[in-house]
C-alpha cells in the first residue's frame, strides 16, 4: 500500500522541488533529479507488480484508501488506489518509458534556458498520468484526467514565445475539456444511480445488469472523454498540433501517457461496455475509421513530426478497435508495443531535428544514415515494428487486434484495418527513406549533422531493443492480463488469439508491397518529397480531409458568435451590477463616520460573511 502512494508522489515531489528551488539548483540538476525520481518510481512499480503477481488469480488486485481527501467537509472522498494487472502494465510503461524520455530530455533540452521549468512540468505530467491510472474510483480518475490535460497544456505551450505553440496548447486544452465534461457527466449519472464511483463497487453491480439505454448513455459520455484524450474522431485535431511542444514531450504524450488514457479507460470499463453494445461497436468503428483516416493523411505530410503524429492517431485507432470489439488484451498489448516503437520514433526524430538544428521539414533531410548510425538503425527497427513486419513487435500486436476483429465477426472493420496497415508501411518507409537515405537535399544542414550525444542515443537504443523483441512478450501479457478480464463479466474474448492464416498473409503482404512501392518511389526514382501533393486527392489528404476547416465552420465560428453575444449580455449585466454596487457604496459612504475610517468596509465584510453563511445554510437545509 505504501509503495503505491510513493509511485505517484515521487514525480509530484520532483515537480514541486524543481519548481520551488529551480533558482538554487545547478544547471544540470533538474534533469538528473527528475529522471532519478521517475526511475525510483519505476523500480517501485516493478516491486509492486511482483507483489501483484504473487496474489491468487481470482483476487489479483491491490486496493485501499491512501488518504481521505475530504472528510467532514461534506461527503467523504477518498483517494482510493486500485492496482491490478491492467493498471500495473500501464504503470510499468509510464514510469519505464517515461524515465527513458526524461533521460533523453537531459540531452535534448541541454541548451534551453528554461529547462528547470521543463523538467518540473515533465515530472508533473508523469504524476498526473500515474494518478489517473492508479485511481480506484472514477472521481480520482477524473482528477488525474484533468491534471493530465493541464500538464499537456503547459508542455505543448512550453515555448510560449511561439504563437503557434500557444494556439496548439489552447486547442488541446479545449478539446480535452470537452472530454472532461463527458467523464464528469458519465460519472455523475453512475453516482446518482448507484451511489458509488469505485471500480469494484460499480463492476459488481454491473455483473447483475442487462443492457439498457441508461448504460448506453453512460458509456457514451465516458467514451467522449476517451475520445478527447485518445484523439478519436471528432475530437482528434489537437493531437497533430500538439507537436508544437518540444519533441520529447511529443514522445511522452504520444507514447507513454495521455493519449493512451482513453484506451485505458475503455479497457478498464469493460464490464460497462458489455452493457452498452452499441457504444462498444461505435468505439470499434471509429477506431477503424481513425486507422485509415490518419494513415491517408500521413502520406503527403512533409513535416517529420506531423507524419508521426498522424501515425499515432492511426495506431490509437487500432487500440480502440481492439477494445471495441472485445479483444481487450490485444488492444492493451498494442498499446504496450506502440509505447516502445512510438517513443523510439519520436526520440529518433528528435535526434534528427537536434542534429539539423531544429529543421523538421523532410524536404531538407536525406542521407543521414552515414552521420547518425545509431539513430538510423534504431529508427529502422521502430519503422519495421509500426509497419507490422514480422518478427518485430508491432507485427504481433497488430495481428492480434486484426485477427480477433475478424474472428469476432467484424470483417468490414478488419478490411479497413488491414488496408490501413498497408498504408502505414508506405508512409513510414517514405519517412524513413526521405530522412535517412537518398542524397542529402540540403548540403549545409547535412554538413553540420552529427550523431546525438550518448545520453540521447542510449534511451533510443534501449527502446530499439524493445521495439524489436517486444513481440515475444505476447504470451506473458496474455497471462498477465487474464485475471483482470476474468474478474467480472464482459470480456469472454479478452485473450489474444490469432485469426486465420490467410488474413495474416494478406496484411503482411500489403505491408511488404507498400514497402517496395516506397522503396521504388523514394530510393530508386528519388521522387520529390512534395510529389503529387498538389493533386486533388493529395491536397485533400494533406489537409487531413479538411476536418479542421469543417470544425472551424461547425464549431468554432458559431461558438465565437455565441461567445460575443454572451459577452454583450455580460457587459449589460456587469453594468447593472456596477450600478447596484455604486448605490451600496454610496450608502457605505454615508456610514463612514471617521476621516480614515473604513468602518463601512468592515461592516460590508461582515455582511458578506453573513450572506455567505446564509447561502451555505440555505443550500444545506
Amino acid at each position: 500500500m505504501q509503495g503505491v502512494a510513493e509511485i505517484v508522489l515521487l514525480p509530484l515531489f520532483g515537480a514541486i522541488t524543481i519548481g520551488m528551488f529551480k533558482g538554487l539548483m545547478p544547471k544540470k540538476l533538474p534533469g538528473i533529479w527528475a529522471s532519478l525520481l521517475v526511475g525510483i518510481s519505476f523500480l517501485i512499480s516493478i516491486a509492486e507488480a511482483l507483489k501483484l503477481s504473487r496474489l491468487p488469480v481470482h483476487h489479483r488486485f491491490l486496493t485501499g484508501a491512501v488518504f481521505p481527501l475530504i472528510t467532514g467537509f461534506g461527503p467523504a472522498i477518498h483517494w482510493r488506489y486500485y492496482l491490478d494487472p491492467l493498471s500495473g502494465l500501464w504503470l510499468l510503461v509510464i514510469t519505464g518509458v517515461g524515465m527513458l524520455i526524461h533521460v533523453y530530455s537531459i540531452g535534448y533540452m541541454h541548451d534551453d534556458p528554461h529547462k528547470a521549468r521543463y523538467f518540473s512540468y515533465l515530472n508533473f505530467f508523469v504524476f498526473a498520468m500515474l494518478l489517473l491510472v492508479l485511481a480506484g474510483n472514477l472521481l480520482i480518475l477524473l482528477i488525474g484526467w484533468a491534471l493530465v490535460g493541464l500538464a499537456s497544456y503547459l508542455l505543448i505551450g512550453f515555448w510560449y514565445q511561439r504563437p503557434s505553440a500557444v494556439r496548439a496548447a489552447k486547442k488541446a486544452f479545449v478539446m480535452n475539456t470537452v472530454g472532461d465534461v463527458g467523464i464528469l457527466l458519465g460519472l455523475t449519472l453512475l453516482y446518482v444511480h448507484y451511489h458509488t464511483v469505485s471500480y469494484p463497487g460499480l463492476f459488481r453491480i454491473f455483473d447483475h445488469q442487462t443492457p439498457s439505454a441508461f448504460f448506453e448513455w453512460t458509456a457514451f459520455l465516458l467514451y467522449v472523454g476517451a475520445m478527447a484524450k485518445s484523439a478519436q474522431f471528432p475530437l482528434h485535431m489537437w493531437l497533430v498540433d500538439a507537436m508544437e511542444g518540444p519533441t520529447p514531450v511529443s514522445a511522452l504524450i504520444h507514447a507513454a501517457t495521455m493519449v493512451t488514457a482513453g484506451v485505458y479507460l475503455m479497457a478498464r470499463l469493460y464490464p460497462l461496455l458489455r452493457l452498452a453494445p452499441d457504444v462498444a461497436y461505435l468505439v470499434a468503428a471509429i477506431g477503424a475509421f481513425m486507422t485509415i483516416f490518419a494513415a491517408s493523411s500521413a502520406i503527403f505530410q512533409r513535416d517529420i513530426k506531423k507524419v508521426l503524429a498522424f501515425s499515432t492517431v492511426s495506431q490509437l485507432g487500432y487500440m480502440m478497435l481492439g477494445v471495441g470489439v472485445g479483444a481487450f488484451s490485444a488492444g492493451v498489448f498494442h498499446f504496450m508495443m506502440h509505447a516502445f516503437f512510438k517513443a523510439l520514433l519520436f526520440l529518433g526524430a528528435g535526434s534528427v531535428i537536434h542534429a539539423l538544428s531544429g529543421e523538421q521539414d523532410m524536404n531538407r533531410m536525406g542521407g543521414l544514415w552515414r552521420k547518425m548510425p545509431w539513430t538510423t538503425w534504431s529508427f529502422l527497427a521502430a519503422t519495421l515494428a509500426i509497419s507490422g513486419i514480422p518478427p518485430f513487435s508491432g507485427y504481433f500486436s497488430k495481428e492480434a487486434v486484426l485477427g480477433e476483429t475478424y474472428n469476432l465477426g467484424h470483417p468490414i472493420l478488419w478490411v479497413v484495418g488491414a488496408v490501413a496497415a498497408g498504408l502505414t508501411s508506405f508512409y513510414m518507409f517514405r519517412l524513413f527513406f526521405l530522412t535517412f537515405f537518398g542524397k542529402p537535399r540540403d548540403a549545409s544542414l547535412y554538413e553540420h549533422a552529427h550523431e546525438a550525444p550518448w545520453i540521447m542515443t542510449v534511451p533510443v537504443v534501449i527502446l530499439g531493443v524493445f521495439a524489436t523483441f517486444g513481440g515475444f512478450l505476447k504470451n506473458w501479457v496474455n497471462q498477465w492480463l487474464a485475471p483482470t478480464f476474468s474478474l467480472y463479466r464482459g470480456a469472454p474474448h479478452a485473450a489474444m488469439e490469432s485469426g486465420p492464416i490467410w488474413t495474416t498473409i494478406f496484411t503482411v503482404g500489403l505491408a511488404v508491397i507498400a514497402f517496395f512501392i516506397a522503396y521504388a518511389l523514394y530510393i530508386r526514382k528519388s521522387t520529390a518529397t512534395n510529389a503529387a501533393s498538389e493533386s486533388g486527392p493529395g491536397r485533400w489528404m494533406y489537409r487531413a480531409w479538411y476536418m479542421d476547416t469543417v470544425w472551424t465552420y461547425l464549431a468554432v465560428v458559431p461558438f465565437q458568435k455565441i461567445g460575443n453575444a454572451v459577452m454583450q449580455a455580460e457587459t449589460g449585466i456587469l453594468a447593472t451590477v456596477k450600478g447596484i454596487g455604486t448605490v451600496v457604496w454610496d450608502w457605505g459612504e454615508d456610514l463612514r463616520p471617521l476621516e480614515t475610517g473604513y468602518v463601512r468596509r468592515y461592516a460590508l465584510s461582515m455582511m458578506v460573511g453573513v450572506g455567505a453563511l446564509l447561502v451555505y445554510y440555505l443550500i444545506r437545509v
Partner: protein
Amino acid sequence: MSATSTMLPEYVILGTLLIAMLGIMVSRAHSTLPSWIGLLGTIGGLWATADLWSRHLKPVLLFNQSLSVDNYSLFVDFLVMIAAGSTILLGWQGEREHDEFPVLVLLSALGMMTLGMSANLITLFLGVEILSLPLYILAASHRDPLGGEAGLKYFLLGAFSSGILLFGLALIYGATGSMTFTDFATAVSSNSPILAAGLMLALVGILFKLAIVPFHMWVPDVYEGSPDAVTSFMAFGTKVGAAVILLRFLAYGFYLSPDAWGPLLGYLALLTMIVGNLVALTQTNLKRLFGYSGIGHAGFLLIGVAVHSVVGARAMLFYLLPYGLAVIGAFAIITMISNGEKNVTIHDLEGLAHKKPWAAALFIVFMLSFAGIPLTGGFIGKFYLLQAALFAHQPGLAVGLVVGTFLGLGAYLRPLQAMFRHESNEQALAGWNVNWAQIVVLVVAVVGTIGLGVYPTPVVHMVNQSANFFWLH
C-alpha cells in the same frame, strides 16, 4: 451547596469592582489605590476559584438553568483572572491610565466569567454585552485621535454584531420555544430553516468577538488605537470569553447536528488561519502584527470547536493558556518600549538584543511560543490541536494548521531579526521604562510559557477535567 458559595469567584470580582469604585471616590486623582484593590480582587478571585476546584464539585445549574458552574467554568475563571490581573499590572502607571481603568477591566472580566458559565441565551447575550461595553470605553480611553477612532470603530461594529447575535438568538428561541441550550437539540428537528438561520446569525455574533475571518476587520485598527494594556486584555480575555461560549453553545445546544456547523467552522478556521498569519507577515506595527497573529490564533482555536470531539475541546481549552501567556508577556515588553507614549513598530526593536539582552531573550521566548516551537507551551497546544484534527479525520484542518504555523513563523521572525540588528536608530528604546508590575507579568508569563512546554501534565489534567462537560448534555 448554595449559589453564593459556588459562584464565589464571580462575587469576589463583583465585590472588588464595587470597592474599587468607592476607592476612586475617596482617593485623589491618579492614585494607585483602585489598581491595588483590583489586583487584590483578582488574587482573591484566583484563590476562590482554586478553592472551589479543589472541592471536586458536581456541576450545578443555577438561576433557573441559566448558569452552569462546573470545572469548565472554573477553568475559564482561572484564565480570566490571569488576563485581568496581568492587564491591571500592565496598566499600573496611574498617571497614564485613568482611575476607572481597573474597574472597567474587572467589569469586562465579569462578562467573560459569565460567558464561561452561561447555559442559556439570556446569559449568553448578557455575558457578551458585559464583556464588550467596558472594552468600548477602554479602547477609547486615550484621548488621541487613534484612541477615539479605535473606540468608535469597535463600538459601531460591536453594536452591529450584537444586533446580528440578538437576532439569531431570537430566531433560535422562536424555533425552539426555549432559552436553555440543552433544549435546542431535542426541541425541533435540526433542519428547520429558522433554527438554521438563527444558529448562523448567532455564530456570526460570537465569531465576531473571536475575530474570525471575515468578521475580523476591526481587530488591527482597534488593537492599534487602544492602550497597550487594553490591547493585551482584548487579545487574551476576549478570545477566552468568545471561544468558551462558542464551545459550550454548540456542544450543549447543537450536539445532535454537528454537520450543520462543524464543516462550516472548519472552513472558517482554515480561512482564518491562513489569512491572519499571511497578513501578519507584512505588518510593521507590532500591535497590528499581534492583532493579525491573534486572528490566526483564533483560527487555530476554532479547529478545536470544528472537530466536535472531546479531544478538540481539550485542545482548544489548553491552547488558550499558552496563547494568553505569550500575549501578556509580549505586551509587557511592548509597554516597556512604548512607555505608553507611542505605537511600537519593528524599527523600535532594533538593537534590543544588544542593549537589553534579558528583555530580548524573554521576547524571543514569547515569539517562539506564538510560533509553536518545541519547549514552549505554544508547541504543545498546537500539537494537541493537530492531534484533534487528525483524530477527527480532517487532514484539511491539519494541513491548514501547519501552513498557518509556518506563515506565522515568518511573521514572528521579523521582529526577532530587527532585535539583532546592530545599527539601531536614535529613537529606538528612547522611552525605555520598567516598573515592578511589568516584571511580575513577565515572570508569570515566562514561567508559564516554558513550564507548559516542558511539563504540561498538571494543566492537561485540569483541561481534561474541565472538558468533561462535553458529555453532560
